[in-house]
């Protein structure tokens, strides 16, 4: 698929003139796995749209690492900062080799002023992100660690898993520490809960690969 066709797919809902304006200004880039796209505190220079691959967004607080989000095709990176004009509040790096489209800040601002449908379209993305964060906050406060990990496994499996005959394969090469940072729990809890799930026959562990053998979302609904 051409860059244009792919972008149009992810820019669905925008009026055609605004989509064309973005297409004219956007640059496509391919990044190898584990490439840092930007770091917490960096000056914001533009936004990214993920076309292919997975990007992790994370923050560190006094030495502790917290993964806020795994982003995939269609997701935007850096939208909060481009509007707030604050330095990056999160770092972002690729998990696998990823293909992204980059739009520079100046071009983005010009497009926003000329095509009011663009900030409104971005507001939908911001609102959805806000909703996700609020849900995560309430879950972190009120839901116990094991259930949160199971919820996150189910969500990651649904978004990024590969469907195979024996189950859903999550092959993001995330360590136990990274899963802990993604859920906001201790790495020891991740190991304990994963082994417990394996004993029950709900998951199978193969190094850093995790196989979901049943519908986890239904189990903890």
């Amino acid at each position, binding site marked *: 698929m051409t860059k244009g066709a792919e972008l149009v797919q992810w820019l669905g809902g925008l009026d055609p003139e605004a989509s064309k304006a973005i297409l004219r200004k956007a640059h496509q880039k391919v990044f190898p796995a584990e490439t840092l796209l930007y770091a917490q505190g960096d000056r914001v220079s533009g936004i990214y749209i993920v076309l292919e691959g997975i990007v992790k967004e994370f*923050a560190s*607080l*006094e030495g*502790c690492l*917290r993964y*806020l989000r795994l982003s995939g095709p269609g997701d935007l990176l850096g*939208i*909060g*900062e*481009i*509007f*707030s*004009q*604050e330095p990056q*509040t*999160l770092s972002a790096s690729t998990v696998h080799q990823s293909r992204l489209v980059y739009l520079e800040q100046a071009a983005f601002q010009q497009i*926003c*002023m000329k095509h*009011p*449908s663009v*900030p*409104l379209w*971005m*507001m*939908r993305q*911001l*609102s*959805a*992100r*806000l*909703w996700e*964060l*609020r*849900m*995560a*906050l*309430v*879950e*972190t*406060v*009120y*839901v116990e660690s094991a259930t949160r990990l199971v919820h996150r496994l189910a969500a990651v499996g649904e978004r990024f898993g590969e469907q195979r005959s024996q189950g859903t394969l999550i092959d993001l090469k995330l360590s136990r520490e990274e899963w802990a940072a993604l859920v*906001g*729990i201790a790495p020891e809890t991740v190991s304990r809960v994963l082994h417990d799930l394996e004993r029950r026959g709900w998951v199978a562990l193969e190094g850093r690969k995790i196989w979901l053998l049943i519908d986890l979302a239904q189990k903890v609904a």
Partner: protein
Amino acid sequence: MAPKRLEIGHPKSPPICGVAGCQGCSWIFSGLDEKSQHELCRMMRSVEYGADEAIFHEGTPAFGFFIICSGKAKLIKHGPGGKRHILKIVGPGELLGEENLFDGGTHTASARTIEPTRARFIKREDFLDFLKRHPMVALQLAEKVARELQGFQAKLIETAYESCRARLARLLLALAEKYGTVNGEIQARISRMDLAEMAGISTETAIRTLGEFEEKGLISLRRRKIAIIDPKGLEELATPLPVETIENLL
């Protein structure tokens, strides 16, 4: 004494609809010319609520959003087992329910007044039309929501790693910054339960921790009011959130 990063960086817009006693409207309307202000005014409908009254419920259709003229309201998200988490408190000149303008039109949280509240209501379709004609307001609204998003990110990171003590200390400093103090007394009547639900801790823990703070001489408790005696001592327990929010107290 106040945490610097929570200072509000954008002054309110001048009063728009001429309501008596208005100290200014939301920052997102800054820069509108007189004609556009009148246009906005014509979309507004006045609403009034008593203390502790529901404004909208989570899961119900969102027909529009509110601009608070006087009083205070809280936005609440219900967690498992009926537990509640207060996401933010809004006061005069601030917006309520604006994030649901764009996401399919369903309220993703509930809103309830803390004290008697007067507000202006604007219908979703009318405001979306207005935004299309005023991209600067759309961009300013996006900036407000973006900063709120960053505030929630910071809270999420804090919640995973910081103690109840640190979270409560930070909340007290933020309340003092937002509502001001007289002789150290925070100028807002917030119940112990609301404090707990804002900090994401149980009411029992909030009461116990406030008692600890009082014993250490950090605060003094006067019925529903709290006076900050030793702001530096509270700051040592919790550094401010690394984000500058606009308008809302998260």
